[in-house]
């Protein structure tokens, strides 16, 4: 009972401590804190917009890449692969989730970033850079460190999470559905589409869960996104996320207003991820009430 209550104390304590410690900026800037695009701690100017922008865009890049891949893996594991192949592959995907964030960051700096600078970035600039409007995304200084690299690292990190939740959800779809579809003459792929349709809200939940992870992911992103508070159309340019500005500056923030600004950003991130996770949980529960998925939520 006391142990269980401690979980409530932790959550309530987090909200109370963070609100009370961010009062200086909340009372001073109000909502302008969230919409201001200038971030100059030395001058006492704090606008969180570049960080909010960086967080959202990097997470979107991550999901655009990781959702199709995760769905593919999950479908392969549950609908197509024989059990003997599926089991070791699931395990390897789980190992991907077990690798610490800081290790992804290290790998990102020394392996992924040079690859993007020398190959992927050049490729994107050559083949997509000339398209009007959209092309702006793929023009600019290619250093390998920037929004695109951050997004790709996030994609690699969210893939195992989305995969395992989708896999659990597909596993609870009753086999009778598959048999019925096959009996009516549907091909294997048509059957899979029917199964996916029935699990749709659970899959949406898995994606939202992945979004929650991407929004809050800290170390790996901090190490590869370039840490510069700007809003730039180009995905090659460095950016900043809420989590990474906390990681990079918190230890040095000595002045009260600066610290308060960082804590308020932490509060924003906390509330957003809390709502996103709660939403994901509701979606997943609607499909798999009880066991499946719960261990990953």
């Amino acid at each position, binding site marked *: 009972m006391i142990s269980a209550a401690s979980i409530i104390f932790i959550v309530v304590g987090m909200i109370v401590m963070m609100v009370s410690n961010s009062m200086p900026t909340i009372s001073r800037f109000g909502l302008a804190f969230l919409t201001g695009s200038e971030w100059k701690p030395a001058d006492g100017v704090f606008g969180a917009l570049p960080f909010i922008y960086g967080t959202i865009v990097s997470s979107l890049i991550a999901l655009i890449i990781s959702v199709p891949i995760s769905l593919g893996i999950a479908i392969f594991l549950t609908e197509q692969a024989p059990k003997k192949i599926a089991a070791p592959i699931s395990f390897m995907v*789980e190992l991907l989730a077990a690798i610490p964030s800081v290790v992804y960051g290290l790998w990102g700096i020394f392996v992924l970033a040079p690859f993007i600078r020398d190959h992927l970035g050049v490729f994107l600039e050559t083949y997509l850079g000339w398209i009007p409007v959209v092309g702006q995304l793929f023009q600019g200084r290619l250093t390998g460190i920037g929004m695109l690299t951050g997004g790709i690292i996030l994609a690699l990190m969210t893939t195992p999470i989305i995969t395992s939740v989708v896999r659990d959800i597909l596993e609870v779809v009753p086999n009778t559905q598959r048999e019925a579809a096959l009996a009516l003459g549907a091909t294997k792929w048509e059957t899979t589409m029917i199964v996916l349709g029935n699990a749709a809200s659970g899959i949406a939940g898995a994606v939202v869960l992945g979004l929650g992870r991407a929004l809050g992911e800290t170390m790996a992103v901090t190490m590869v996104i370039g840490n510069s508070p700007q809003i730039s159309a180009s995905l090659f340019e460095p950016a900043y996320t809420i989590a990474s500005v906390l990681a990079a500056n918190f230890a040095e923030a000595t002045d009260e207003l600066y610290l308060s600004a960082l804590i308020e950003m932490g509060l924003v991130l906390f509330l957003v991820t809390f709502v996103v996770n709660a939403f994901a949980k509701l979606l997943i529960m609607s499909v798999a009430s009880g066991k499946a998925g719960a261990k990953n*939520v």
Partner: protein
Amino acid sequence: MLSALMTGLTSACAVFAIAILVLILTYIAVRGFSAINLEFLIDTPKPVGEGGGIGNAILGSVLMTVLATGIGLPIGIGGGVYLAEMGSNWFGSIVRFLADTLIGVPSIIVGIFIYTLIVLPMGRQSGLAGALSLAIIMIPIVARTTEEMIKLVPKSMREGALALGAPEWRVTWNIVMPAAASGIATGAMLAIARISGETAPLLFTALNSRFYNYFYDQPMASLTVQIYNYATGPFDVEHQMAWAATLILVGLILAINVAVRYLARRRY
């Protein structure tokens, strides 16, 4: 035709994920092994170019993980037992819901919480603050796995004991807990693996230290923060040390995961 094509596509996705895993592990193994030696494992950090090692960081990680486990494990297991045995009311559902969302809250937020709660009043960063943040990350994970494991214990065992006249606490303690013990241990091991790889909550709670430090009231080095500092440092020597330290960290975490998997398979 379409079916075959889609199977090709989905298996390509699976191959991609495995390739990424292999790629990451190979880089760690190749770069890590070339930089590792005994001095590196026991020495403290030295100015760039003079060698040095990560002995104090390994010690710091171990000390903080041990304390975090000491705090987080009993609370987590206690909470899980409560949820499984008495948690089918509104209080239980609130706790369960908060635990699930807490698992998804970014770990750096936990760091901020502990910073405002412990570091500001104490006036300095400390190993204690680092260990407490890790404990907070651990509690909801352990609570939820414990609950799942206890629920797997067959009802008939419980009913049998109750029918023999055992009081409820006795049934929980002497019948249900031993039956669920190995599952709970598995969950605990995975939670330990998880917190030993955490970096973000330690950055400004435990900070870092250049020396061997055995006291929880002082700033403490950790393997993960050390990797972060070395990786973002400007010198090649530092990068090499980052890879070597990563080899140790990832080796440990993968070993736990593989061991847990092996033990879990033997059980069923």
